[in-house]
């Protein structure tokens, strides 16, 4: 116990006093600290910064608005108002007198109304009481009279009220005769100045003031009615899955992103930037308004938080990551399973609501992602919901013998990019976990055995003898102009730059070293001879054209060959095959099995097992593997997987899903690094040599493979139109129509290989409203030339009716104009068509439109289709729409808009009635005959 200073105390009281004082001071300081900590939050500071920015921007807008006011009109209105006021002042006495009358009548009206109301109330009560008494048989005749008298009284009072009201209105109108003009002028002025007024009001409400700073937003007092507060949007229809419940999402992103749905902040740095494309996202007239969709359903992240790091913002790349680490002390957030998608990958979330829609219009990044996913053939090894039943992405190998040589195949599967730098075939051997000196002999025997197996299990196939090789230069011109480049690249080596649509068909580099002239000729003439299920269409090449093309393609030679195949080291074959056998049986049985096979059988068995291990059969048809299950992990809900399910091994990356996917796609075998593994226990996903861009696209695709959580109320409505659109979009993407044509804002990659856009295949978005469906059906079955000046031609695809109907319904569903076949009465010659002919000449339609002959002296960009086809090809109503505003239907068209101010017209016919003029021209056009048609000659 401490020393006693004073008698009767256990402690030294002076010392205790000091301790008490000190601790009280500490308490005061800690309270100050607590208040300060609450006051100095990051999000509050962000809102304070925004206030000054908003002041600045609104002031700018105010200046613009002030400058934008029509000075003349304003002056006029102000003068009118001044004059009207003068008029009122001049008649001041009269106006006052009239106003007095009005006031007097007002007073009288008030009293009379009151009297009436009292009388009526009393009457109602009495009448009801009377009715009750009468019903009980206790009412006498005097009462009935009294009631009637009361009713009459009430009616009289009411009449008085009505009369006074009418008088008052008259008197008011009399006053109004003088003052109304002032009001009119005033409202005109107000209208001119609305925007200005609104902005000034806004400035007043957001200007900082002493009250705001000290009291409303001050430390400790800002719980009462702050102007700086958390802003949130609660979305009852959009859910967060918290594992045992699905709760409405609550997004507080706007607390810092204050201008996200306000126009005018597009140029400012985050977090104050306006959202891109407000008309599609967050605008009040967009399909995704902010108060119905929030933020995190598209961007993920932790919407409930208001701290930069804790909301799980994800940087786009390493530079941004370093920047954030320095500026904001950022680190990946551990305790949130679904961090934000990096900017540019937000479209992966479209599928949350737009389910099973493989291609969502407006989400072009997602469209590219899926196109890359499908072209790379990921779905072939990895099952994904929505991608079942698609064809195998690689060519069939069941007839290999008739096309390729064993040496070429061995070199090819050893290193595909050596023969074709832009190929989609991935690298299976000599990857980062199989390139050591001990692995090389194993790889070689596996490759050799696979080749042996493939050739052993190939059907016979022979091509008829071709004509003599054609002209190489002519062939090259054909290949580069007739449309091959819509799906194939010839000399380009950058697969990522070309994109998945222009590499839809295999790259043609090296094809000369691969296949013989005869085979190429046979293929180009009739692809389905070698491969009945191929998607390659028929370009209707004549014999000469095909010979030219084949001659040219044969010149696209190959590279030096690798080690000679066909003679693998027998000991190595034994060793590797034994390893394989031991995976499915005990060691003793494996040895016995091995001993029972001869050399050739061993190679076949090893080839079979290697194909089974590496999954070649997932992408290629191979005999003996018709029903084998693919080797990849199912990816249907990969984005909903928890990060704890992924094995990071010894790789030094952040433990997030995004980084794992990026690392895996960049080098699929990298997670074997540093591990001690038997050769057959190693990772086996092949390497696709993806570029950064392709990697990001595939990650976007993977992040779109999610569990479906959102309730039906959140989903866009379905219906027949929707189904046609979904099926149609899949069709045009998966058959690569979009490789050549732009449809609904996607595709049209062919434009990159022509000199200018007008030389590319036409825009197909308006096709449904533009053409008659039966014409379209005939055309698709057997295309004709609509624009004869173009070299590129529409191929014959040889599909069945089901596909064609899918396409036609799709095109019609785009403008929501699904309609049956119609007969359009041909216009009889009438005064209308005659006038139409006159207008046709005046407007010089034939200067650009083909009418039998291609107009001379016009650059190709100006040329337009043959109008003789119009009667059986085009919808008459569409022709009218087209003539009204062509640019709305085909942006960038050279067709002039002759009637900018409909229904007025610059032309004299029909008394300047533009609509009639348009109709007349159309009727005239519909009289033309004799153009090319897909309906004739048995097409």
């Amino acid at each position, binding site marked *: 116990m401490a020393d006693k200073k004073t008698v009767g105390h256990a402690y030294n009281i002076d010392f205790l006093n000091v301790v008490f004082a000190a601790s009280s001071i500490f308490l005061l300081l800690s309270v100050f600290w*607590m208040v300060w900590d609450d006051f100095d939050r990051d999000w509050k500071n962000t809102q304070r910064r925004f206030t000054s920015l908003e002041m600045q921007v609104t002031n700018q807008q105010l200046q613009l608005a002030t400058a934008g006011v029509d000075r003349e009109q304003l002056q006029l209105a102000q003068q009118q108002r001044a004059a009207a006021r003068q008029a009122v002042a001049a008649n001041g006495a009269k106006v006052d007198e009239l106003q007095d009358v009005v006031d007097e009548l007002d007073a009288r009206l008030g009293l009379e109304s009151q009297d009436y109301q009292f009388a009526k109330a009393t009457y109602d009560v009495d009448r009801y009481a009377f009715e009750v008494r009468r019903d009980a048989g206790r009412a006498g005749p005097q009462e009935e009279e009294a009631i009637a008298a009361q009713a009459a009284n009430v009616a009289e009072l009411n009449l008085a009220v009505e009369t006074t009201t009418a008088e008052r209105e008259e008197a008011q109108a009399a006053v109004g005769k003088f003052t109304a003009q002032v009001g009119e002028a005033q409202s005109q002025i107000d209208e001119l100045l609305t925007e200005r007024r609104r902005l000034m009001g806004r400035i007043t409400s957001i200007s900082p003031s002493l009250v705001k700073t000290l009291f409303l937003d001050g430390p400790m007092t800002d719980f009462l009615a702050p102007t700086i507060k958390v802003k949130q949007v609660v979305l009852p229809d959009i859910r967060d899955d918290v594992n045992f419940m699905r709760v409405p999402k609550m997004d507080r992103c706007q607390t810092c992103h204050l201008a996200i749905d306000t126009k005018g902040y597009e140029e400012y740095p985050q977090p104050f930037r306006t959202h891109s494309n407000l008309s599609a996202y967050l605008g009040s007239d967009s399909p995704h308004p902010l108060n119905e969709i929030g933020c995190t359903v598209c961007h993920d992240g932790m919407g409930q938080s208001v701290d930069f790091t804790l909301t799980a913002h994800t940087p786009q790349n390493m530079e941004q990551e370093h920047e954030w680490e320095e500026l904001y002390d950022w680190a990946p957030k551990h*305790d*949130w399973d679904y961090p934000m998608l990096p900017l540019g990958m937000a479209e992966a979330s479209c599928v949350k609501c737009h389910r099973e829609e493989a291609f969502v219009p407006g989400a072009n990044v997602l469209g590219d992602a899926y196109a890359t996913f499908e072209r790379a053939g990921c779905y072939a090894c990895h099952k994904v919901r929505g991608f079942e039943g698609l064809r195998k992405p690689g060519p069939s190998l069941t007839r290999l013998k008739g096309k390729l040589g064993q040496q070429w195949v061995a070199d090819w599967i050893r290193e595909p990019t050596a023969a074709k730098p832009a190929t989609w075939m991935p690298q299976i051997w000599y990857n980062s976990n199989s390139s050591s000196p001990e692995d090389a002999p194993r790889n070689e025997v596996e490759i050799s055995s696979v080749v042996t197996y493939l050739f052993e299990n190939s059907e016979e196939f022979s091509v008829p003898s071709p004509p003599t090789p054609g002209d190489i230069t002519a062939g090259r011109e054909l290949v580069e102009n007739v449309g091959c480049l819509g799906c194939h690249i010839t000399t380009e080596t950058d697969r990522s730059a070309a994109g998945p649509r222009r590499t839809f068909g295999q790259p043609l580099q090296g094809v000369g070293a691969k296949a013989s002239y005869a085979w190429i000729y046979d293929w180009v003439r009739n692809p389905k001879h070698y491969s009945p299920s191929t998607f390659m269409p028929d370009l209707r090449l004549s014999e000469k054209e095909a010979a030219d093309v084949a001659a040219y393609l044969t010149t696209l030679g190959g590279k030096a060959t690798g080690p000679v195949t066909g003679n693998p080291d027998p000991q190595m074959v034994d060793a590797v095959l034994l390893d394989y056998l031991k995976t499915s049986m005990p060691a003793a049985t494996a040895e016995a099995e091995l001993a029972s096979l001869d050399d050739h059988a061993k190679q076949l068995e090893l080839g079979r097992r290697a194909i089974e291990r590496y999954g070649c059969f997932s992408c290629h048809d191979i005999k003996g593997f018709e029903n084998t299950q693919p080797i990849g992990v199912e990816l249907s809900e990969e984005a909903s997987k928890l990060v704890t399910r992924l094995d990071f091994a010894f790789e030094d990356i952040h433990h997030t899903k995004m980084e794992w996917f990026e690392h895996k796609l960049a080098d699929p075998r990298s997670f074997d690094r540093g591990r001690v593994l038997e050769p057959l226990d190693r990772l086996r996903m092949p390497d696709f040599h993806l570029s950064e861009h392709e990697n990001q696209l595939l990650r976007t695709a993977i992040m779109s493979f999610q569990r479906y959580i959102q309730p039906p109320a959140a989903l866009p409505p379905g219906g027949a139109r929707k189904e046609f659109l979904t099926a149609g979009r899949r069709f045009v993407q998966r058959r690569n129509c979009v490789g050549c044509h732009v449809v609904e804002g996607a595709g049209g990659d062919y434009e990159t290989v022509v000199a200018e856009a007008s030389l590319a295949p036409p825009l197909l978005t308006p096709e449904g409203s533009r053409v008659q469906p039966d014409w379209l059906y005939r055309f698709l079955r057997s295309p004709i030339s609509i624009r004869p000046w173009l070299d590129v031609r529409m191929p014959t695809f040889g599909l069945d009716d089901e596909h064609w109907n899918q396409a036609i319904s799709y095109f019609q569903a785009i403008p929501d104009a699904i309609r049956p076949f119609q007969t359009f009465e041909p216009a009889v010659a009438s005064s209308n068509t005659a006038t139409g002919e006159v207008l046709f000449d005046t407007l010089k339609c034939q200067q650009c439109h083909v009418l039998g002959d291609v107009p001379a002296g016009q650059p190709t960009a100006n040329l337009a289709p043959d109008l003789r086809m119009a009667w059986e090809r085009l919808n008459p109503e569409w022709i009218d729409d087209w003539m009204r505003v062509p640019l709305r239907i085909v942006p960038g068209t050279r067709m002039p808009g002759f009637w900018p101010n409909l229904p007025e017209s610059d032309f004299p016919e029909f008394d300047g009635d533009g609509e009639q003029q348009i109709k007349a021209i159309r009727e005239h056009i519909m009289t033309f005959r004799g153009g090319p048609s897909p309906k004739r000659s048995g097409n």
Partner: protein
Amino acid sequence: MQLIKDVINALADPRLFFLMSVAALFLLIWKREVFASNKVGYWLFGLLTAFLIFGSFDENFQKIIGKPDNVPIVGLIFLLVFFTWFSVREGVLNDRRIAAGKGPIEKEESDRVWVWPDLVYTELICLVLFSVFLIVWSILLEAPLEQPASQSATPNPSKAPWYFLGLQEMLVYFDPWLAGVVLPSLIIVGLIAIPYIDTNEKGNGYYTIAERKAEIVIFMLGFIVLWCSLIVLGTFLRGPNWNFFGPFEYWDTHKLEALINVDLSQYIWMRGFGTGMPDFWLTREIFGILLVLGYVFALPPILARTLFKTYYEKMGPSRYYVSAFLFLMMMSLPIKMLLRWVFNLKYIVSIPEFFFNI
């Protein structure tokens, strides 16, 4: 630097940790005269603080100590050390006084009760200081909220609340029935029974050690060693998969330990007699059963005639047998731990047919 950390990591191994705590307890009681000085008190505090400061420069140490869940246990260590030291000191001081014939200090001036300002003022000061402590804590340490719990993601390690970590540690050595039900019930029963079996009137209302040595040692063994130090072990030194990790060791979820343990019956039949295991459980486990029965029923009477003779005579048979039983149950934990560490012993009695193992 790394050498020091490696040494500490090695010393923190459960075997050494436990044995050192037992040794420290006996050292404390044996050399209590030395421990009673203020100098030793300050040294203890200084050493703990220095260790904390030294460790906080290490990333792994920081993560363990700085986890908001674990910060109170750091406080627990300080408090435990302080109160142990303080009570020992008070006991020693009183023992000195009693030896000098003066009587304990609590009996001096027992005619008055200190209230104002001694009690209330100091309480007020404590209130203020504690408020400061709580305010500062709540500003500096964030609430340890994690993402929504998921049935498909079990946390690793999955730890019990700190007050049950001692029991969770017992689960390493005992079957869940014993570690989770029987022994905890006996702990409670034992605590309830203390007033009935502790007949030593000495130490009533004053600190002492010499007059209550056995009781104090038993209690400290049970509380400080078998309960609190296992809490500390469970908080700081047990990581993913309930593996041991030193204070400066990285919590590697893939760390593997070769832990193949053998039952007593397996030792006896397979290694001892060289035959296979008998089918019938009674034959198989007879040795273990006899051992356990002997421990529970034969050992107390033996001890009554030998080691604990004085106690037997002092307490009488019923009190003695109850205390002996409870004491032997308490000691079964360190005994089992030692058997595990030395012989890799899993179960003394293993009857999977009835889900019963000891």
